[in-house]
């Protein structure tokens, strides 16, 4: 009898090049994505060793982290960012790597353009010097973030040394209520397991609620797997996956397409295969979620109250929560609903795709942003931007009083000048609420695009369900 296998095991085993006893596996990489921030030192390493890029066609570059989101005709004001961008251009040119550069109509956040171009495909191994590479797992790829030394390893050998992670099934059953979205599923999972709950594991998201999500929603969920400590999160490919990929620039075509689809549809966890860990969530019981602390695991239902550190028996947990609440300027027991905020950020590789922007625009249509609130809408790619503009979404955002930008990471990581001022409160659709993540001293509440848009309208943290039922 053939041993039943999980989706992860199937992809892992089909990429094993070699493994010596007592050593990590040598895993082949199908697609390597690079960006300006975590690659320069890897290329320097290659030059020092006089090595070449082994398979330049399997690496794709773009710039997203430190680029400005103002009009592309304006110069890059930050000389360090400009230097990094020039260096990526030079490295791509020297080693023959395809680059979606500043002028490219396909430029965007690396985790948005990979799927958009059809580069991301089921069953692949995909890596990038960026922890949110987990996003690509939505296609049934094994995709994870790596460090800069490993970027160099992949450039030189197209392989990585990897220890086999354990598997963790996240089963989500039922259907989401109106106003509740994919972002709320993942925030709810993180609130349950904490930021270290998935360490050493790869998540596989299963269950009827996951099956009924669109590809963009699956990407939102997989994107934040790393926030639970899991380097990768996967969803088995199905008709939704195939329909998304059909006709994309780098997706196979003709006979190759038919063969690929057949192969992809077999990429699912066999009956009888077991996971090392599992958890089940009831989608129907979920409310819109919001974080109150300084890591993505510190989240609760939007109608909840900030927890009391004294309710924790563990001394270090108590301390961690106290420290977080001090930074956030919050009191134990305080509700977050109604809290006045300064900035709303709609963007990032978690929630900057066209469906995210459509949701936010639908709510903002015919309404205006509360006075005194700065709202930044940053599409995930220039392609998303064009699509949004062809649908007139940009006009809705602008007429409501929001700022409509060029594609990039922007205020998710605050490297490009889009940042919070010290003490400001932001509701953000991004993935990290760490201290200073969106600007030194800035304070972040993570939510879905729907909650962010609702909050933009009232200027206070708002339960979107009160706006959509009216």
């Amino acid at each position, binding site marked *: 009898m053939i041993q039943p296998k999980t989706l992860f095991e199937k992809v892992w085993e089909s990429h094993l090049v070699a493994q010596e006893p007592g050593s990590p596996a040598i895993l082949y990489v199908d697609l390597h994505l690079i960006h300006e921030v975590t690659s320069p030192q890897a290329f320097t390493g290659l030059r020092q060793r006089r090595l070449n890029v082994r398979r330049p066609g399997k690496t794709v570059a773009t710039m997203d982290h430190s680029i400005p989101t103002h009009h592309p005709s304006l110069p890059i004001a930050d000389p360090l960012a400009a230097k990094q961008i020039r260096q990526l251009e030079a490295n791509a040119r020297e080693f023959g790597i395809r680059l979606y550069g500043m002028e490219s109509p396909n430029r965007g956040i690396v985790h948005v353009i990979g799927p958009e171009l059809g580069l991301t495909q089921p069953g692949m191994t995909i890596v990038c010097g960026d922890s949110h590479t987990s996003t690509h797992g939505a296609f049934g790829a094994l995709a994870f973030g790596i*460090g800069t030394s490993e970027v160099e390893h992949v450039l030189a050998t197209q392989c990585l040394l990897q220890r086999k992670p354990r598997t963790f099934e996240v089963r989500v059953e039922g259907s989401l209520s109106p106003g509740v979205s994919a972002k709320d599923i993942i925030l709810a999972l993180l609130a349950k397991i904490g930021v270290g709950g998935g360490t050493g594991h790869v998540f596989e998201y299963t269950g009827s609620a996951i099956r009924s999500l669109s590809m963009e929603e699956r990407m939102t969920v997989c994107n934040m797997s790393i926030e639970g400590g899991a380097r990768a999160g996967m969803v088995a490919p199905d008709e939704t996956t195939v329909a998304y990929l059909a006709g994309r620039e780098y997706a196979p075509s003709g006979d190759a397409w038919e063969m690929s689809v057949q192969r992809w549809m077999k990429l699912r966890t066999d009956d009888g295969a077991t996971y090392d860990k599992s958890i089940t969530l009831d989608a129907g019981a979920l409310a819109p979620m919001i974080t109150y602390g300084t*890591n993505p695991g510190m989240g609760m239902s939007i109608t909840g109250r900030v927890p009391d550190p004294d309710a924790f028996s563990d001394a270090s947990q108590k301390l961690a929560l106290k420290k977080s609440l001090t930074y956030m300027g919050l009191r134990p027991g305080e509700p977050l609903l109604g809290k006045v905020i300064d900035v709303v950020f709609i963007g990032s590789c978690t929630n900057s795709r066209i469906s995210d922007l459509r949701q936010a625009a639908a709510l903002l249509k015919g309404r205006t942003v509360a006075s005194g609130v700065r709202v930044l809408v940053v599409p995930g790619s220039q392609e998303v931007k064009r699509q949004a503009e062809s649908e007139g979404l940009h006009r809705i955002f602008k007429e409501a009083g929001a700022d409509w930008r060029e594609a990039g990471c922007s205020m998710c990581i605050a*490297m490009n000048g889009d940042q919070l001022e010290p003490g400001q409160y932001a509701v953000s659709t991004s993935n990290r609420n760490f201290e200073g993540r969106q600007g030194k001293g800035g304070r972040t509440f993570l939510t879905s695009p729907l909650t962010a848009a609702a909050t933009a309208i009232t200027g206070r943290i708002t339960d979107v369900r009160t706006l959509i039922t009216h």
Partner: protein
Amino acid sequence: MSQYSAFQSIVAPLLVNDIDTDQIIPARFLKATDKKGMGDHLFADWRYQPDGSPKPEFVLNNALYRQARILLAGENFGCGSSREHAPWALCGFGFRAVISTSFADIFKSNALKNGLLPVEVSADAHWKLVRFLEADANAQVIVDLESQTVTLPDGSRESFPIDSFSKYCLLNGVDELGYLMRFEGAIRDFESTHS
């Protein structure tokens, strides 16, 4: 990479759980195109006032810890971003080991490639060490990779796990890329059949 030998040092305690890599090195310092100078920015937002002067209450600003080679941190150290700038910054400051009860996966992998040893000890051993440091900030600890032990100030020894491959690489100064490149033949064979 140089060989990792046993050493003795005082320990800088930073007893916070879930210290993410954005705290270890904030993103605005990631615009550099080389690895140098990162140590100056280690824990920048916890370490410096907005005007750039040191915050006196932050542990690494205590002159005593300028020579510390070991950092003692709370659980799940290094979560968040994959930036290898985090171990570069820790090494740049002079650290050679971080002791915690657990580490985030990507951080651990990055640290091992830079001669920074993630020393994972039990909650009991961690607690014991905290008590020793509270009693005497100058207490010395020995980290010995060969025997996979840390020797606490009272002479008691606590063991820590490390996979045999990383241990071999660290002890012998072997670089992982060199190892990987020996598999050129296997990689070529794999490529000839892999679609």
